[in-house]
Each structure stands twice: as C-alpha cells, then as structure tokens.
C-alpha cells in the first residue's frame, strides 16, 4: 500500500521544500500501528527548478522497499497555472487536487479544493510561505499524516530564525484546509 503526492508550481515557490518537509515528517516521526513508515522524495532537476516549473514527488509506503517514483498521484498540490496545465491530465478520477486559488485559474473536473494560500501568506506579510500554507492545507485535507509529525519536520528544515513563521503559516493552512472540507 503506497500513497503518492505531487507538488508542482514555479521554481522559487518552495515546492521542493514542501515535499522534503512531508517526506521527512513521515520518515522520521510518523508511525502506523506502532510501525515505522517510509517515504521517498524525488524532484525535477536543472534549470526548470530554478525559475521555470518545479515538481516534487513524495511516495509513502508501509514497507521498506518500494518503487519510489510517482506515476499517477493520489494527491496533486498545484501552485501555478503552467503546473496545472502540465500535470492535471496525469491524474485519475480518484486523484484529489489542492489548488492555490489565486495562482491557478483553471479548475479540474475531478475532486478539488481551493485554498487561498498566497493571499493568506501575504496577510501575514510573507508571500514566500505560501508553500507552507499549502502544505498545511494538504495535510488537513488528506488526513494521511499527523500535523505534529510535519510540524516537527518543518522545524528541522526551515532556515534558522524562520521556525515560528513557518509554524504560523502551517497552522493557517490547516485552518484553510478545514474550511475547504466543510465548504465541500
């Protein structure tokens, strides 16, 4: 049993950061039935991750050895219109899409949730943490991993001095996620 998650957006939005925080949280802090879980994070390399489109995949598994590459994601988290266009058809009817509502114009015909991530991040004065708001919303909507595990991983990977900002952004995200579920 594996769960696949794909984050996609523009280089510089922190797409890869979100994936690393998720995979790290699952790998180090999450247990299922008292047993360890495993996660592998992979990403796009080269110039496209440095300003163009950026993609980061996470695969979560209960067993240690598994195919770590994502083909069709169970969850697709999108933070730009080009990323939407590139990845929206690499889905199936069960894929759940989470969108940054101001950054993505189109809407899919499969299950999706609108999250005002960039707007919320701007409200706290830091547009740069929109990716963490999205991560919080994804964790709430998917329910596949505990908030505590991901928050702990976020503290590990956030640059020194930004831990509380990231924590705040994550909490705003989980609240937006909750609202999105209730509005559904």
């Amino acid at each position, binding site marked *: 049993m594996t769960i696949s998650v794909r984050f996609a957006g523009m280089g510089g939005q922190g797409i890869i950061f979100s994936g*690393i925080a998720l*995979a790290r949280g699952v*790998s180090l802090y999450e247990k299922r039935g008292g047993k360890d879980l495993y*996660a592998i*994070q*992979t990403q796009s390399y080269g110039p496209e991750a440095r300003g163009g489109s950026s993609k980061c995949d996470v695969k979560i598994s209960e067993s240690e*050895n*598994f195919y770590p590459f994502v083909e069709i994601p169970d969850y697709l988290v999108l933070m730009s219109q080009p990323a939407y266009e590139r990845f929206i058809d690499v889905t199936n009817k069960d894929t759940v899409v989470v969108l940054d509502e101001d950054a993505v114009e189109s809407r899919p015909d499969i299950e999706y949730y609108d999250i005002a991530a960039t707007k919320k991040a701007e409200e706290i004065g830091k547009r740069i943490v929109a990716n963490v708001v999205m991560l919080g919303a994804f964790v709430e909507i998917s329910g596949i991993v505990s908030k505590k595990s991901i928050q702990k991983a976020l503290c590990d990977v956030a640059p020194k001095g930004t831990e509380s900002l990231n924590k705040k952004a994550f909490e705003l995200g989980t609240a937006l996620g909750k609202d999105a579920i209730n509005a559904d």
Partner: protein
Amino acid sequence: MRLEAGTYFMQGNEACVEGAIAAGLRFFAGYPITPSTEIAERLAERLPEEGGIFIQMEDEIASISAVIGSSWVGAKAMTATSGPGFSLMQENIGYAAMTETPLVIVNVMRGGPSTGLPTMPSQGDVMQAKYGSHGDYEIIALAPATVQDMFDLTIKAFNFSEIYRVPAIILSDAEVGHMRGKFTVPKKSEVLERRMRTDKVWHDGFAYDESLVPRFPVFGRGFRVHVTGISHDIAGYPRTDPEVHEELVRRLSEKIIGNRDKISLTDIYNEDSDRFIVTYGSPTLAAMEVIGNDPSIGLLQLKTLWPMPEESIRHVAKNVKEILVVEMNMGQVFKEVQRIACLEGCENVRLLSKVGGEVHTPQEIVHSLRRC
C-alpha cells in the same frame, strides 16, 4: 563527528558522504559535476569538521591524481564524479590499479555518451568501470539501489579498497544519488584498515605473502619505495622482463578474482521461483514492487558488479526457465549474465533495456515478463 547511531533522512549523495566519514575518509579531491555535486558540497563542510582535507581541483584528472597521492601518505581518500569526469579519470584508474593504491571513486551515473543527459539517470558506465583503462587489471565496483545502500556500500567500498589495495568504484545513478529517504546508522559499522609496513627495509616495497596483497609502505615514515606505472619488481623498480610483468599482472588480477566470493554482495528474493529478474541500482526498486505483487517471480539484486558475482548468478540459473535482466543501458550486465547462465544450461536470458533517462516502471517489467 561521524553520525551517531540512529535514523536519518537524507539525500543518497549525502548518505554516501556520511558512509565515507564513518569509514574513516581523510581526503577528498574533486571537481563538481551533476548529479554528484552534493557529495562535494557536503564534504566541503563535513570533512574539515573531521580534521580531514577537502580540495576542489581544476579538473577530474587532477582530482584522481591528488587522491592517489594522498593515499600514498596513508590517508583514506575518495573522489566523486559522473560519466564525463569518470572518462577523464580512466588513465589514472589504471595507474592506481598498477601501483596498488587504495582509493574510492563515486560515479553517480547520468545519461551518456559524452555530456549526454546531465540531470537524468543511466547505468551506461558498467563496462567502462571494469575495462576503461588499458591493459589487464581488476577493480571492485558496487551498485547502491537505496539511500541506505549509499551509506552501507560506501563503507564496504572503503573496506575492500583498503584490504585489497585496489580502486573501489561506487556505481550509483542520478536517481539513487538525488532521492531523499530514510537510512539507519548502526551502533558499529565494520571498518577495515590497510595492512601497513612497519619496518624500514627499503628493497622490497612490493613484497607479498599468500594474500597476494603487499603490505603498504606509507610515504614519509622512513620506508623508501619506488612507485611507478611501469611494470616493476617487488622493489618497485622498472623491469622489462616478461616473467616479472606476467607475475605482476596475474597477481593484480588474482588478488581480486581469488576473493570473488568475499567481495560478491548479492540479495536473493523468492529463491524457489523458476523465473528470475536480475537487476542492480535504481531499477531494483521497480523489481521489488513486481515481486511484492507476484511472489512467483524471483529477484537477484547485484550489489557487487565487479568482480561479477558468478556464484550467485549460477545458483539462480541452475533451476530457472528464464532470466530477465533489467538495466538502464543497452545491455551491459546482460551479456555477463547471459554468459554465466549459459554455463548452467540456462539459455533463456532476456534484456529489458531502457536508455531514456528514466527508471523502468514496475508495469514495464510485468509486461516484459508476460511476453515470454
């Protein structure tokens, strides 16, 4: 400090660095190249913390030269590169084999030939690792498939290199090097040291015993030894006699081939199967998923590529109807498996080749198995 025992979450290339430090790495010289750069990046920070030396050289030829030099003053030494840099290193790999210099080379393979596909994986350098330099010689090559392997096999590479006084090559690939995942550092890893010369005799620097591996006379400790790539006698001095050359070249091979069983690292899953996948490196992860869903299929994972683990391949070939070799090249290990399986009467060996810079999917392996 080397990492304490515990569980860590890192990139494959970073786990390789930690394995090297756990094995006692003291010197790194390299020239950054995708997809191996994170190894140099992390070592630039970690090695000085350990009291070791990190140098960024002007190119890969200088890098391996510096590594050879540092090994001769007794340091455990390493470099890291990818295909284009590995090609530049070939001449000195032969020199290291001829002078019996312990060192580790990490080749995080990317698509070739030439500059090829810098950011994407391949397994195109398997034959080059063994045959890239001129003349008859043996090296050791290991192929990690996971982040854990990047840590464990790096330690093994140092151990083999030190014990047999031979270049040990880690043939990783862009996927294994770049993926992030969990790995465990055990309380104690077995770390082996070079057998040193402690006397000050100076006329037999390459004298050997039944192990065929000469004790190592460290430069600068009073033992005078001549080191040359020219055929040499046990004093290290150039000799052109055919007998001396033959004795040397046969011994350089025999000290590795004679220990093939000790060096061969393999894992066998679903041993009683009559259909087997043989693979190594990142395609192993696709094969794992296939055999997880269908236990009637066996898997032989080669963690050692050179010397080729002939015993394990023969063992698998004995009772099987077919073998499918899965690799990201046009069939390099395939030809070896075909040759070895044939010795056991198994002629049905097929290749599932992929050269597009992507790892095989489990589905592609399943389709290929169905075709027969």
